[in-house]
């Protein structure tokens, strides 16, 4: 079991090398002639007005919030699905109830107009 994760651990340690090698090679081979105009923010030739780090449309965050609910659902559904052969009737009913509750959550969000793109 633990030896399975040894491969993943080594992979995680070694993985940064593969993107780093070409980027460093590029840094070594490429020209280095910075100037203020070149390093300006590129927005199709027009000078940037103000910072981009502003408060942004809340809609995007709401989708992320709804997503969190379903992501947690996956944490529960995956083990249930993997062990489905050993589940009794009670556990199956529990699962059905669980999915049903999530569906109600989705319908609630829908009814509140959270899923409307405005």
């Amino acid at each position, binding site marked *: *079991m633990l*030896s*399975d*994760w*040894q*491969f*993943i651990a*080594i*992979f*995680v340690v*070694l*993985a*940064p090398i*593969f*993107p780093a090698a*070409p*980027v460093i*090679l*590029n*840094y070594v*081979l*490429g*020209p*280095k002639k910075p100037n203020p105009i070149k*390093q300006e*923010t*590129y*927005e*199709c030739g027009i000078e*940037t007005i103000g910072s*981009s*780090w502003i408060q*942004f*449309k809340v*809609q*995007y965050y709401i*989708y*992320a919030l*709804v*997503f969190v609910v*379903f*992501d947690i659902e*996956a944490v529960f*559904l*995956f083990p249930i*699905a*993997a*062990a*489905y052969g050993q*589940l009794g009737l009670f556990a*199956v009913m529990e*699962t*059905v109830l669980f*999915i*049903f509750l*999530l569906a109600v959550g*989705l319908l609630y969000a*829908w009814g509140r107009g959270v*899923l409307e*793109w405005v």
Partner: protein
Amino acid sequence: MEFLKSLVELTLFDYLRQVWGNAAWVEVVLDIIGVVVVSTFCLLVVVFLIWLERKVIARIQDRIGPNRVGGKYGLLQTVADVLKLLSKESFTPADADKPAYNAAPFLIVISALLMWAVLPFAPGVVGVDLNIGLFYILSVSSISVVSLLLAGWGSNNKYALLGAFRSVAQLVSYEVPMILSLVVPILLARSMSTQDIIGAQLVAPFMFVVPLSAIIFFISSLAETGRTPFDLLEAESEIVAGFHTEYSGMKFGMFFLAEFMSTLFMSGLFAVVYWGGWSLPILNMILSLFGVTPIDLSVIAFGRLIGLVVFFVKMFAVYFVYIWIRGTLPRVRVDQLLNFNWKFLVPLTLVLVLVVAVVDKLIPAEMGVLGRAAIHLMTNLLIGFGTIEVLRQSARRKRLLVEEVETAVSHHDDHGHGDHGHDDHGDHAMHGADVVAAH
């Protein structure tokens, strides 16, 4: 761990184990070799993928595509492009948030690479066969969302920011139907391990058992990899290049690399989970027609080699469909994209998971594998055709409504209602989806 273990019977790894003995460091060295082989394959295959994509897209659009560099077919075009990228200046914009800006390209390639650790290429030829394989894939692939947000936010560029927010909304949304549709094959295979899922498909690939789940997975994998028709995160005609507008040189190349790697990975995953990976049921069927006992590719000599070829054929066939779709479909709008997901795909997938779970318990144990598969196929088709029928009904209602409005409204106030009418025309499928889910 068992990487490259016997393309024929005795493998390089077995040989190395014999030579070096069974000390702990030997396994570590073998793991390192495995990691290097997997990663090198991923990086090098992208060179071929980009060439393939350009060539196929060109053919679809009635062009020739790259045909100068490297002989008649332009085979070395991508190599030339990589060399050009290497010789470009790599700079950081003055206004950018430097740590975030520079970390993003690394993180996205790392997440695209790590996914390959559990993808089985052939019997026994897999980085490591984790017992939570699919779960691992989903968790690693969601790291890419973080790196896209880092890139967009760190660039301090309005287009990049728009691209980043779109990517978060899109990737995060489409992860839900993807996760839910993957519950179905896990439920049928009773395991999250990729090898076990292939093992459960030796008789019938899940494509022919739960086609609806496969289609949902395919659509959401298109969105997850940001490919047409869901390529809003880097829509050139709207937001320059989205989150990687500010990147140049090889840092830009890394985003490109990660995109192609994860697309190929998704086609590989689709081939594994729904088409049976390296297994070849048709071979067994033909053999059993002639009275030969079915064979398992994992036990016969050269089985690994056959399995490798079978898997690659399947993977690239799926990849070709990705390219085909890119050459065929236009881009959707952001509201269409999100509505299609939350008001159609997610409710449909919830229903599908529920039905498959209940039906699977109701099937008596003595039915046998083929009987189970047939019943699941029937329920899937029922849900599928039921959905299409409901969509058609609601689309017809909408159309009639629009026609009534158009005949009732005279020409002089056409403008005010024209918008409304246009909206309904463009959104038949979307509104249909609303109605389905509302039912």
